[in-house]
């Protein structure tokens, strides 16, 4: 197990104006799950269920209220600032919105080489080598080196998401968090990105922590899945098992609401209805 999350709870203090007393909001409640090396683990849940909060905890952008997060056997909370920085080169993240997650004032070259600059001490690349690696990464994600000096707004959504993936891969991470990497993209482009992710996993032996609310995508990408509802894990297990024989009501509800692109399986039409 490369990542173990043990009984993690996260409370937020919510203030309702200057006079009211602050209350607590529990975004995650006693969450436990573990992700094996080289697998694709899916996390599914509706908006506001706490998915992004969990990734922020894994990345140590926020502190847990209680519980532990272990990466490769070490408790993240116990790490010194130096070790934490080192760890950040092993865990990387690709964000949901390819439009907002790239700095509009930086060129593609600067965006992708920035993580290598930050982790200069572990990677030890000079400027020339960094540029070479940026070109290499751009080719890896199917963009080509000619895009080196363009700005993010000059790219389409799918291309931007590839830039985001290239940036995440720049420091040779083992563990990639994908926070709804395709929800802002067209299905055609989503297919391209999903295929790219599959190729990369095979080539680089990555572990994926894949967040989505699209059950079709999760089923296609993940080996194991956890369903999260209002901050609590309601079911987890092998993907096929959950899709074929869901145990919780919530899983059944989600599966029944998932719109399948097959006109014959529509809840609105009796199957016997004729065409037209």
């Amino acid at each position, binding site marked *: 197990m490369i990542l173990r999350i043990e009984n993690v709870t996260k409370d937020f203090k919510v203030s309702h104006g200057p006079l009211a007393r602050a209350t607590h909001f529990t975004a995650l409640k006693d969450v436990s799950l573990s992700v094996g090396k080289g697998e694709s683990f899916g996390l599914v849940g509706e908006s506001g269920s706490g998915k992004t909060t969990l990734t922020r905890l894994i990345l140590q952008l926020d502190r847990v209220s209680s519980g532990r997060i272990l990466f490769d056997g070490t408790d993240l909370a116990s790490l010194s600032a130096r070790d934490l920085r080192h760890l950040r080169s092993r865990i*990387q993240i690709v964000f949901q*919105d390819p439009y*907002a*997650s790239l700095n509009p004032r930086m060129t593609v070259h600067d965006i992708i080489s920035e993580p290598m600059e930050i982790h200069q001490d572990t990677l030890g690349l000079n400027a020339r080598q960094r540029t070479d690696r940026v070109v290499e990464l751009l080719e890896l994600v199917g963009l080509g080196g000619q895009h080196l*000096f363009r700005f993010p707004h000059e790219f389409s959504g799918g291309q931007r998401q590839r830039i985001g993936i290239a940036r995440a891969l720049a420091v040779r991470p083992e563990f990639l968090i994908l926070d709804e990497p395709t929800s802002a993209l067209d299905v055609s482009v989503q297919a391209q990105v999903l295929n790219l992710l599959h190729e990369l996993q095979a080539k680089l032996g990555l572990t994926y922590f894949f967040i989505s609310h699209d059950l079709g995508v999760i089923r296609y990408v993940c080996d194991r899945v956890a369903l999260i509802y209002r901050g609590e894990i309601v079911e987890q297990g092998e993907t096929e098992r959950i899709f074929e024989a869901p145990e919780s009501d919530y899983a059944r509800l989600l599966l029944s609401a998932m719109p399948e692109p097959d006109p014959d399986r529509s809840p609105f039409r009796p199957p016997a209805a004729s065409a037209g």
Partner: protein
Amino acid sequence: MTTLAEKVPASATSSRWENARRGFYRFRNSWLSIAGLLIVLVLFIIAVIGPSIVPYPEHVAGSVSTATRFQPPSALHWFGTNELGQDVFSLVVAGSQISLLAGLAVVAVGALVGTLVGAVAGYFGGWTDEVLMRLADLKLTVPSLILAMAVAAALGPGILNMVIAISISWWPGYARLVRGEVIAKKEEMFVQAARALGAGTGRILRRHILPNILTPVIIKMSLDMGFAILTVASLGFIGIGVKPPTPEWGSLLSIARTYMPDYWWTAVFPGSAIFLAVFGFNLLGDGLRDVFDPKARR
């Protein structure tokens, strides 16, 4: 936006150039912005080369010719002459240098100090924010002209002292603007992304936050230029700015006011120069807003 796969820039410079051309396209769509840009350009050209081409450089240097006092505008003296017989045109042209330079210095110092204070306050928050912003509020409670007058009076006359005096009352505006922008940008996804990569505070501020808040600061600087020139002129007007014989629009106007309305030209021309500068910089500022508007990225 469609992708332009065919046109591929070869370097960051050409890419920036392309963006600048897009920006200019939006700028060009409003002739008022163009007018502002032209006014500002002409003012700067006059400020640079003006003093060396004025018809009566000796008047600029302070010499008087009592024989030609209060002559109305004519071919010889375009803007007429003043109570000392000096050519008003020469004085107004030469005065542009001091006024623009002082205005620029005030805005630059104010923006620099304000940006630093605002960025630190906005990024770190907590008591740092509390202390710095209370300090800024304190400045905002005293009308800036009064504060500048007090400081200028304490420091004594002179251009440098005047710039310091005005800047002291000028930075809080920038600090508030920058603080707000930094707080907003801090939550942006790409800043979070940089943090997730392990970037430190310095890098995040320098490379991710500040470049993205420069735009409103530049726009404010341009809009403020007019008011800074006005403030410089006001201090000149009440006599604690630049001392004669150095020509400066505000002090020219101040002296001339006693001769209104009979010798109107002594006041109207310096006054128009101030008006033109304020107007030009404001139009330019509005135009720049369009250029930098990220929503207009077409």
